[in-house]
């Protein structure tokens, strides 16, 4: 698992991504997927909901599958049953996404391998919101261990990296 939790890869994805397609984004405000989608929008990401059962979530048009999304996707963020991940990974490769991100508990080594073989960066069993908040420094405010050990003065907020 640790090969899919590399801190450097996580940082690169969080800092360079602009468009995040959230597969399984729920319209219910109480679901983890909604928390993450709302949070990413607040922090300037373009969030594209992918869910065959919804029409509009977080003010955005919902697409039934990744194939239907009419624009380039930087990160495919998955909140689905692990059994659904291999197919999602194949679609993510097909549409040329930059990374496959599997949320807490979404563990599929098969799906991860498919995405990796297709040239995508892969993160597994990690939360995109938590990792963004870790870099921003806000996660620290809740008493969580960020793992950050540094005495260098940091700029205020996150400085986005130029998109390659």
């Amino acid at each position: 698992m640790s090969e899919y939790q590399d801190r450097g890869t996580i940082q690169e994805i969080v800092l360079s991504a602009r468009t995040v397609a959230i597969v399984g984004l729920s319209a219910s405000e109480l679901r983890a997927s909604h928390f993450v989608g709302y949070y990413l929008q607040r922090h300037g990401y373009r969030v594209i909901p992918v869910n065959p059962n919804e029409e509009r979530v977080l003010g955005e048009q919902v697409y039934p599958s990744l194939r239907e999304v009419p624009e380039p996707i930087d990160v495919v963020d998955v909140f689905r049953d692990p059994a659904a991940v291999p197919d999602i990974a194949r679609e993510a490769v097909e549409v040329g996404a930059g990374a496959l991100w599997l949320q807490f508990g979404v563990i599929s080594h098969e799906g991860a391998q498919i995405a990796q073989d297709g040239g995508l960066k892969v993160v597994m069993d990690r939360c995109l919101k938590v990792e963004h908040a870790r870099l921003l420094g806000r996660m620290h405010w809740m008493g969580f261990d960020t793992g950050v050990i540094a005495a260098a003065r940091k700029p205020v907020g996150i400085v986005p990296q130029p998109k390659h």
Partner: protein
Amino acid sequence: MDEAPREFGFNTRAVHAGQRPDPYTGASATPIYQTAGFVFEDTESASAYFNLQEYGNVYSRIMNPTVAAFEERLANLEGGAGAVAFASGLAAQAGLFFALLEPGDRIAVAKALYGGSTAQLNHLARKLQITLDWVDMDDPDGWRRAVTTETKALFAETIANPGGNVLDIELAAAVAHEVGAPLVVDNTFATPYLCRPLEFGADLIIHSATKFLAGNGTTIAGAVVDSGTFDWSNGRFPSIADPSAAYHGLKFHETFGVYGLLMKLRSETLRDFGAVLAPFNAFLLLLGMESLAVRMDRHVANALVVAEWLRKQSGVAAVRHPALPDSPYRPLVDRYLPLGAGSVFSFDLESGRDGGRRFIEALSLWSHLANVGDTKSLVIHPASTTHRQLSDEELAASGVAPGTVRLSVGLEDVDDLLWDLEQGLRAARGAAVTA
């Protein structure tokens, strides 16, 4: 990325974890954010903070940046996902059990426990209809015999106060996980420098940070550290897994995963309990923790010298330091406490209750007070202080003899400490002979 991030050592993390220079001012020390409230950027942000959709500072009864630096440092040193600070160790203990338990639940608790903890658990049991199953932690079958399908937690101290019993953490964790309950360990006496129970399978840590973490007896403080690995959605913890009425039906474990219990403990339990750590106290704890490892090394070394010396003195019936070569806990010390078994231990005077009183009165360097884990060496005689209402029979039942003396060995020159103990022993012996 090409290069793996560096895994920093304990001392480096004790100095730096949880704190970076202030981004606005460059202040190197952690600022004391002495404020009750925090101004919201806008109404949308305010509502996001209240709905837990965004990590933001709201009110110092729930979170505070100075307190957060202490919480993160402790969580980092213990190897946990995070921590929630409380106003005292007992507040942390009450908060955690209040969050975990429902009326009718049972918890298995080591009999060898700090008296204040025992008193609190009895109080909680009475008020909240919790059943306590007391366990002899020295009995290898003790935990297994005590747990039932109703057991919601197992609780013990790494090194028990004042008996010095050492917990077999892996054994207790195995029993806990067989019944789907977390192992909760009070790691106050060991500190994360001497033992990190989460590495041996414990799920939650409680600290009285008043002791070695603060280091010099200035501050009452406590904390809960969570490993983040326990499955609260195993069907046994509705208070963590089921929809929360306080947050429109939010399911803390499902939504926040690894951080579910900690979010619950902060946004519900601490919020409603109000037993919050003050920012200034957190600042003192941060100062103390920077030197934790070097202090603990000296505490451990001084305590061993004192224990070995006491064994050779006449008038001393028994010395209970778990790291002594003939201690029954020596194998557990080797396994769980390779850097030392702390500096709090007890010994028995042959001269009983009166001898204990004379011993204390003859000391001039050891402080006679009810605390442990200070830079100063501390001494207390339970039979004439904390346990003075008990008869000799009742004392025996609580594991304390009339002549038991508890020491917390500090950082003074150890020869000076022995010189003073010699004065005490002479008084204890002398008068005993004439009596």
